[in-house]
C-alpha cells in the first residue's frame, strides 16, 4: 500500500458541505425516530409463548422456516424438556387464538401436533434497564466532557459531545427509518459505536492539539488539515480492519448478528466522518485559538513525562 503522506486533502475547505450533509442526516433521523418510531424486538416488547407437543421429534429448522414464511416475526424455537416438546416464542401481541393458529399451521405439514399452552410473555428487559442505562449514559457523557475539557480544553469537549450525539442519533435514526429490528444486540452495538466514535475523536484531537502547538502559521483551517491528513492513514487502517470484520459478520453471519453488524457499520462510517467534520470542524466556529491551548501546555508536558 502506498503511503498517504503526500496526500493533502483540503478537509476544512469543504466543511460547509459536510455540515449540510450532517444536518440533513440528523433531520431525517430525528424525523424517523419521532414519526416512524423504532421497531423494537422481542427483547423489548415481549410477545407470545406457545408450547406444543409433537407425536415424533420434529425438525426445529423446518418449524422456524414455516413460521417465518407465514409472517410471524422474531421467532425462537427450542426443544423443551423432551425432543418432542417444542417451545415457540413469537413477537406477536398475545390473544387467545395465537396458539390455535400456530398449531394449525404446524399441522399443515402433516405432523400430529397438540397445543400444550399459549401465554403472554413480557419483555426481557425492564424499565429499570431503560431508566438506569439512560441515566448512566448521561452521567458518562458528562464525565467524558469533563475529562476532555481537562486534558484539552472545553471547546474540544463541546465538539466531542456533539459528535457523539450526532453518531448515536444517526444510527438509531437509520434503524427507525428502515424499520430494522432493534433488540438487545443492537443496543450493545450502539454502545460500541459510542466507544469507537470517542476513540476516533480523541485521536484526531490529539493530533490537532499537537499541530496547533508546533505549527508556525496562524491559519487554523490549514493547521487542522495538516493534522487530519497526518491521521488519515491511521484512520483508514483502523476503520478498515473494523469494517472488514463487520462485512464478514454481515454477509456471512446470519440473522442473529445481521442487525448488530449493520448498526456498527453505520456507526463506524458516521463516527469516522464526525471525528473530522463535527468534532474537529466545529472547533472553527467555536473560535479555537492557539491561546486556548497554551496556558495548559506546561501542565500537560509534565504529566506526559510521568506517564510512561
Amino acid at each position, binding site marked *: *500500500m502506498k503511503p498517504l*503522506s503526500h496526500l493533502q486533502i483540503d478537509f476544512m475547505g469543504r466543511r460547509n458541505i459536510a455540515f449540510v450533509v450532517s444536518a440533513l442526516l440528523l433531520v431525517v433521523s430525528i424525523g424517523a425516530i419521532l414519526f416512524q418510531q423504532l421497531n423494537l424486538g422481542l427483547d423489548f416488547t*415481549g410477545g407470545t*409463548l406457545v408450547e406444543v407437543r409433537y407425536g415424533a421429534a420434529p425438525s*426445529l*429448522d423446518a418449524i*422456524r422456516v414455516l413460521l417465518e414464511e407465514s409472517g410471524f416475526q422474531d421467532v*425462537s*424455537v*427450542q*426443544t*423443551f*424438556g*423432551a425432543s418432542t416438546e417444542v*417451545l415457540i416464542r413469537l413477537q406477536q401481541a398475545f390473544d387467545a387464538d395465537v396458539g390455535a393458529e400456530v398449531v394449525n399451521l404446524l399441522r399443515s405439514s402433516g405432523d400430529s401436533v397438540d397445543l400444550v399452552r399459549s*401465554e*403472554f*410473555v*413480557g*419483555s*426481557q*428487559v*425492564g424499565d*429499570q*434497564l431503560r431508566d*438506569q*442505562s439512560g441515566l*448512566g449514559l448521561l*452521567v*458518562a*457523557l458528562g464525565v*467524558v466532557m469533563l*475529562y*476532555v475539557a481537562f486534558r484539552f480544553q472545553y471547546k474540544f469537549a463541546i465538539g466531542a459531545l456533539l459528535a457523539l450525539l450526532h453518531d448515536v442519533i444517526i444510527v438509531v435514526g437509520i434503524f427507525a427509518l428502515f424499520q430494522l429490528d432493534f433488540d438487545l444486540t443492537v443496543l*450493545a452495538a450502539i*454502545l*460500541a459505536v*459510542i*466507544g*469507537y466514535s470517542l*476513540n476516533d475523536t*480523541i*485521536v484526531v*484531537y*490529539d493530533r490537532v492539539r499537537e499541530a496547533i502547538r508546533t505549527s508556525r502559521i496562524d491559519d487554523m483551517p490549514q493547521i487542522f488539515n495538516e493534522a487530519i491528513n*497526518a491521521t488519515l492513514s*491511521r484512520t483508514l*487502517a*483502523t476503520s478498515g*480492519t*473494523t469494517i472488514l*470484520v463487520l462485512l*464478514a*459478520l454481515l454477509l456471512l453471519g446470519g440473522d*442473529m*448478528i445481521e442487525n*448488530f*453488524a449493520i448498526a456498527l457499520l453505520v456507526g463506524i462510517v458516521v463516527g469516522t466522518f464526525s471525528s473530522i467534520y463535527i468534532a474537529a470542524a466545529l472547533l472553527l466556529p467555536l473560535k479555537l485559538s492557539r491561546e486556548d491551548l497554551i496556558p495548559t501546555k506546561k501542565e500537560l508536558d509534565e504529566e*506526559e513525562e510521568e*506517564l510512561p
Partner: protein
Amino acid sequence: MLNRYPLWKYLLILVVLVVGLIYSLPNLFPEDPAIQISSAQGDSLDEQQIERVEAALSENDIEVKAFEEENGQWLIRLRHDDDQLPARDIAADLLGDEATVALNLAEATPEWLQAFSASPMTLGLDLRGGVHFLLEVDMDAALTQRLEVNGSAMRELLRGERIRYRNTEVEERSLSIDFASSEDRDTARSLISRDFPEFEYSSEGDGRASTLVMTLSDQSVSEIQDYAINQNLTTLRNRVNELGVAEPMVQRQGPNQIVVELPGIQDTVAAKRIVGATANLEFRLEARPDTPENETETLTFRNEPARTAELMRDVIITGDSVSSASNSFDENGRPQVNIDLDGTGGTLMNRATRTNIGRNMAVLFIEHKSEDTVVTDPETGEETIEREPYVERGLISLATIQSALGNSFRITGLDSPTEAAELALLLRSGSLAAPIYFVQERTIGPSLGAENIERGLLSVQIGLLLVVLFMLVRYKVFGVFANIALALNLTLLVAVMSMLGATLTLPGIAGIVLTLGMAVDANVLIFERIREELRNGMSVQQAIQAGYERAFTSIVDANITTLLVAVILFSIGSGPVKGFAVTLSIGILTSLFTALMVTRAMVNLFYGSKPVKKLWI
C-alpha cells in the same frame, strides 16, 4: 541509541502470558453433552444394563464419546448436542423404573487445569440452551405483606396522635383495627383515611366493640399485584445476573408467572436456592418488660430452638433498605455480612438506636417456604399437588446497642461462609416483593438453529482472519508482532471472561472479534508514527522510540475516555448494559497491555540491541 527493556518487563509479560493461557485453555475443552444414569434404589448399576443402553444408542445412530462410572453412577458422554434428548429418552425407556436418567453437561477440562480452578465459559441460551424454571408469584402473600406494612404505619400514626387502639387484624384484602370507643374510632378513621386513600373504609360495631375495617379497592389490588410482579422481576434479574455477563432470560409470563432461563446450569439445586430464595431481614428492638403484650412477639433463635426472645412488633427497617452488602470474616474468623443502608434506612436506624442505647436489637431472618403434598381425589383418583405456604422466622443475633448506628454496620451469627455469601447476594439484589414458588423445571434446547450457529461462527473466524491478513500486508514484520499481540490479547480476554463466569453468546463472540478489530488501533497508531518519523529522517532506533512515545498520549487519552464511559455504565447500568461495560473494560485493558508492552518487547528483542538500517514496516 538502542531500545532495550529491563528484564522485569519481559518476566511480567511472561507471567501474564502463562496465567492467561491457564485460564483460557479450558475453553478448548467444551463441556460434553451427556446423560447421567443412576440406580433408582441407590445401589450401583450393573454392567449389563449399561451394555443394553450402549447397544440401543448405537442402533439409533447416536455417537458416544465415552462411558464413565463414578460412585455407581454412569455418565455417558455424547458427540453431538442434538443427540442428548433422544439418548435420554432411549435410556429412560429401556431402563424404566430401574434407573433415573438425567441430562448433564460433563466437564471435559483436564484435571491439572481444574487444579487451578480454571473452567470454561458457559455457552449461552442461544448456542446451547440451558434450564427453564417457571415460577409463580404468590399474589395473596403480596397483599398480606402490604397490609401488614400499612398496619404497622397506621399504628405508628395512632400512637403519634395518642389514640388508643387494641388489635389489628389482617384478612385476605382487608385490615381491621379495634378501638375502645366509637369516638376514638371516628377520629382514627378521619386521620388514617387522609394518609391511606387506597382503602375503602367502613365502621362496624360501637362502644367497646368499635372496629374500623379497611378494604383495598380493586384498582389498588391490581396495582399491588403489578408492583409485586415487576419488583420480583427486577430482583430476580439482579440475582441471576449480578455482573451482567451471565446472559440469562427473565421474563413475565401470563398474569402471575415468571420464566427464568439460565444457560448451561448443571447444579439446578444451587440455582433454585438462589432464584427462589425469599430470605429477608428485619431489625427490631427487644421489648421492655413493661411493653403491652399486643405490641410484642416471642421468637426463637435459628441456631438454638430452645432460646427465645421477646421482641417489639414494630420493625425498624427491613432488608429492603440495604443499599449494598458484602460478606467477610470477623476477627475470630466467623462469617459476617457487612451492610450499607440507603439514606432513609440510615436515618431510621440512627433515630431508633440513638434513643435506645443500652437496649438490645435483634436481627430476624425471615424465609417464605412452601410444602407440596400430593392429594388424591377419592372420587376420580386424580392426583393434584397442594401447596401449603409457610413462613420461617428465626433470630440470628441479639446484641446490645453500644452507640447510635449509622449507614453501615455488620451482622454476625450466621452458620457458614456460604450462608453469609448467599445472604449478602440476596440483600444486594433486593428482596422479593412476594414469595415465589417453582411450578416447572425443564431443560431447554438452543434458541438458534444449528445452521445459524455455524454461519455465525464461520463469519467471526473469517473476520478475524481478515484482520490478521490486513495487518500482515500493511505492516509486514511489524504486522507479525501486532498479530502475536492480538493472539495474546484474545487469550487474556477469554481468560478474564472465564474467571468472571461469563456466558458466551453468538453476539458476544461477534463482540469479542470486533474488540480485536478495534484493538489493532493502538498498534496502527504506533506503526504509522514510526513510519512518519522514518520519513522525517530519523534513524531506525530513534524512530521506534519516538513512535511509541508520541503515539502514547493519543492511545492513553482515547482509551481512558472510553474506559470512563464503561466504568460509569457498569456502576449505573443494569443487565446487558452492565455486561457490555464489563466486556468493554476488559477489552481496553488487555489491548492496552498487549499493544503497548507486548509489541514493544518483541520489537526490542528483534531490533532493539543491534544497529538496523531498514525496518520492514
